[in-house]
């Protein structure tokens, strides 16, 4: 996972430790995501992760149906 910290007031490590568990929770950490962190609160990060997870699930279902 690549995490680009766009908030100079925060350390890269802090951002990584903040974002990585949420990505893992939504099954996204192993997909080599590129993250640009702009200081979003946790509820926003979660909403982005769940939206992405939903899109990926829909794409996987379409692939399975298409064979």
């Amino acid at each position: 996972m690549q995490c680009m910290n766009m908030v100079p007031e925060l350390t890269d490590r802090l951002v990584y430790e903040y974002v990585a568990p949420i990505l893992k929770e939504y099954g996204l950490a192993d997909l080599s995501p590129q993250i640009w962190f702009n200081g979003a609160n946790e509820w926003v990060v979660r909403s982005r992760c769940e939206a992405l997870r939903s899109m990926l699930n829909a794409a996987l279902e379409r692939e399975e149906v298409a064979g």
Partner: protein
Amino acid sequence: MNQTAGQLVYFYVPGYKPNYIEYAMTFYPMNIILCLEDGTPEDKKLEARYVVKHALQAFADSEHTLIVRINSVHTPYWEQDLEEIVPQRPGRIRVPMVKSAEDLRLVERKVQDIIQARSLDYSPVYEVMIECREAIANIASIHEASANIHAFTFGGTDYYNDCVAKGLPDPVREVRQAKQQLGEYCRSKGLQCFDTTYMAFRDMEGFRQDCLLSREYGFTGRSVIHPDQVALVQEIYGTSIA
């Protein structure tokens, strides 16, 4: 009558903009409408759905009343909207482009299915948007379609566009007549009735005149799109007509 912004003012926030939602939460308590419909572009519909879902969770204890405007039953989005937001127990659900009683029944059936499937402790309350001539003609049957209607609200832009699409010669007059009819109906039934947004938010005198007329028609509150409009809505709709 001296009513608070929480009873009169309905502040629209685009559902796909979390920073706008967070900003709205800093205002004094009022009704915040998290919009999944016209305030959200097509390519942001899915993203907005999850932003609104998580906003409802994050701000569940807020003093604001959080209302979600779902997509209309005439779109492919409305069922998934309800699947994600109903479990978060929004304060009210605003249903756009209701043309007939069956449109509202569709929503109510779906909401009840979700409540039962997930054993939710939740009683939905609806705000029904009247946005076309068909809806005005069906207002009584729409009202009878649900016991959970808190208010009717008027969608002026879509109503105007409906009149233009039907080739009516004077859409402005049609909108005015529709507002009179809706206000009169709600007044006779003791229902709340909220007027449409006024998009020219820098024209405060024009907005003032529009609010005064709206109140005469029977509207009891208003949707706004800019913080500067809040105080004027509270001033005008918060006083009784002599």
